[in-house]
């Protein structure tokens, strides 16, 4: 069996530790292995108490995001050998409270997601008997990219604005708001605009674009935020000029 590589893994148990520490493990460095395989090796063979989330191992469930050598990554899509000869630092996603080891607190994101009303809003529904809402491939393309978000929250761990201002709705939630705003079947854009405009965090986004760089699904949340800001600014100007005309 081949070479080994050293993993430096954040360990933290609120029942035991005052603050997080680091534990190192030597694991086999196989060419097919991703960082997640190395964590599974540790859990199965070296220390069963290591805590982390994972599920699909094919980059679609969004569970296994962690900081790998300081960058937010899906560990199931990050090859171990690309960090040879090591060491590889594996930490919980930054800017989130840590529950234990590599497990972060997700509830802030879950609240923000719900907050942007990520569902179809229409004043009137047509009966099922009338069939589907027609949507051309071009209309689908208008929002498709934003519908690819897997909620892995890597973009929050990359976002300097979220790091400073946890009230910021954040890249994924805004991208998902735009996913519905731009869907030809939806009529809820102004309702969502009211929610997003309540907090000034969005204006703090300076188009650093870190969120787009780390997104494993090419959602381009930075683009979504810029488009949103443009739309919101237009609404604001309209409301100044024609206070009766926007709602």
């Amino acid at each position, binding site marked *: 069996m081949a070479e080994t590589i050293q993993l430096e893994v954040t360990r933290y*148990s*609120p*029942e*035991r530790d005052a603050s997080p520490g680091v534990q190192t493990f030597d694991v086999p460095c196989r060419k*097919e292995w991703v960082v997640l395989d190395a964590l599974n090796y540790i*859990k*199965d*063979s070296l220390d*069963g*108490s290591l*805590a*982390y*989330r*994972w*599920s*699909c*191992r*094919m*980059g*679609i*469930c*969004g*569970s296994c995001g962690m900081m790998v050598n300081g960058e937010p990554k899906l560990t199931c*899509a990050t090859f171990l050998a690309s960090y040879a000869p090591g060491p590889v630092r594996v930490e919980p996603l930054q800017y989130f409270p840590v*529950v*234990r*080891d590599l*497990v972060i607190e*997700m509830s802030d994101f*879950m609240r923000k*997601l*719900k907050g942007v*009303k*990520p*569902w*179809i809003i229409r004043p009137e*529904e*047509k009966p*099922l008997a009338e*069939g*589907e*809402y*027609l*949507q*051309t*491939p071009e*209309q*689908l393309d208008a*929002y*498709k990219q934003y*519908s*690819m*978000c*897997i*909620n892995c929250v890597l973009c929050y761990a990359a976002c300097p604005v979220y790091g400073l201002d946890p009230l910021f709705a954040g890249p994924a939630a805004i991208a*998902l708001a735009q996913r*519905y705003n731009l*869907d030809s*079947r*939806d009529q809820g854009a102004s309702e969502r605009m009211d929610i997003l405009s309540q907090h000034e965090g969005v204006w703090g986004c300076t188009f650093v674009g870190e969120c787009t760089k780390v997104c494993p699904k090419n959602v381009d949340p930075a683009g979504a935020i810029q488009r949103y800001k443009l739309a919101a600014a237009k609404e604001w100007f309209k409301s100044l000029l024609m206070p009766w005309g926007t709602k």
Partner: protein
Amino acid sequence: MDIATHDVLLVGGGGAGLRAAIAVAETNPKLRVAVVSKVYPMRSHTVSAEGGAAAVVKPGDSVDEHAHDTISGGDWLCDQDAVEAFVREAPQEMLRIEHWGCPWSREADGHIAVRAFGGMTRMRTWFAADKTGFHMLHTLFQTTLKYPEVMRYDEWFVTKLLVDDGRVRGVVALELMSGKIQALTAKAVILCTGGCGRVFPFTTNASIKTGDGMALAYRAGAPLKDMEFVQYHPTGLPFTGILITEAARSEGGWLLNKNGYRYLQDYNLGKPEPKPVLRSMELGPRDRISQAFVREMEKGNTIKGPYGDVVHLDLRHLGEKRINTQIPFVRELCTKYQNLDPVKDLIPVRPVVHYMMGGVHTDINGATPLAGLYAAGEVACVSINGANRLGSNSLPELLVFGTRAGRAAAEYASSQPAAREDAVLAQILDEERRIEEQYLRKTNGGERIATLREEMQKSIEEGAGIFRTATSLQVAAQKLRQLQERYANVSLDDHSRTFNTELTAAFELGFMIDVAEAIVESALRRTESRGAHQRTDYPKRDDEKFLKHTLAYRQPDGSTRIEYLPVVITRWPPAERVYGQESAEGKSAS
């Protein structure tokens, strides 16, 4: 011990669970409904489904043809009344999720687009590129967020069903974040926990697919039905088991042996044509294609690889544009995980455990024989899938039967008096004590979870793989009994409360060994070959003796008792399964 009271509990927050939760809320908004899931709902394994969802909407198609495809695909083990309800209700359920915003792929004029799929006579499979399950799950999850009456217990692990006086009264669950063990009582419980692919060593299934709901029901006295029918999908990537969707073949992909020969023509699946032909060759059913792989391997025509033998899936002739628009995820998965590009390279593939046709025995409304207990989705066996499920039937199944189970459970719960907590209090305390003593406080024992898991996976693959014999199954049965005994000696490294994933892995292993025993015992007793259950010692289908569902009951001593239940036949008497041009009348799929 805290107790929270609800009317209807969903265990599992994937497609079936979320659809059922909405159905409960819409049937009776006064009911207190909650979804209990060991992962955040959008992590559920529905997310991994790729190719599509079948429902008849196009001119020229008919629900009777969809029914016949499903029944012949299932080798006549499907209950035909359930199939008829399924094909009739699938279109409206698919339309409903379109109205909720699912981003279906479209034709140029804006109508829903459909593609061909294995074993289907017509093009009737709706798709959202090749991330159909992902889009359906996120649409369902985001839609549930607008129902304030649907409460959620995210990252709660259910360890036991509470049963009193022949009725289900709720569950005991562990909150991962805090380590708190709590009872959630309810008048009705709907299991929507999905399958158990992780019982096997090589599977497309996510790590969470450990048969939890099957084992919970089995332990509570409900029977598991047709557990011997395990679907191997023909095209998994070696080592990872990542699925390459059947849509790759419906778009025109070829399966080639080591000589570059389309070997399926030698297995009674039709003649090779340059364009895909419905119900023929690469668009045959999954059981037959996976079985052909083994035969080809026996002939020495497969390619040796570091993770077992493979054949090649060839998509190169489709061209970059078609691959990018129709099956972009296939390209993404191949480049990211296999370091090859299907536009230029052959994809190595081998059969991989994908789906359980069997599951908790339910009627056509998702009700199990245990009062108050319902099941829907892969965890359940209604049965519309019989001895072999057709690709793209499982996604509409979870919508149709999630809805049916949700409505039935809501009506049942509405008619029941409030649950009496005192009746189950002793059980709750017993379960809490069991978890403390067997796992959290125990320091001796010496058996490691990973060791037992690997031995279980190896024994079931050897004993109950694509081809089985009485001997192979008996060896596996014996091994599993030993593993049950050794399981009592599992000891954990982790004795803490907060997010103890070694504890949940221990629960999951216990569930899997129970489910594995049900699979092996059911397979041992079915002395015929049908669909995905192939006995080399009994190579023929035997309708005289086995046009029946297997029901596996767990006995108090842990052993399995087998009973049989006749298959419901309405309009399609058992016949030969025919694939290739004779059956498809040469219909082209493109």
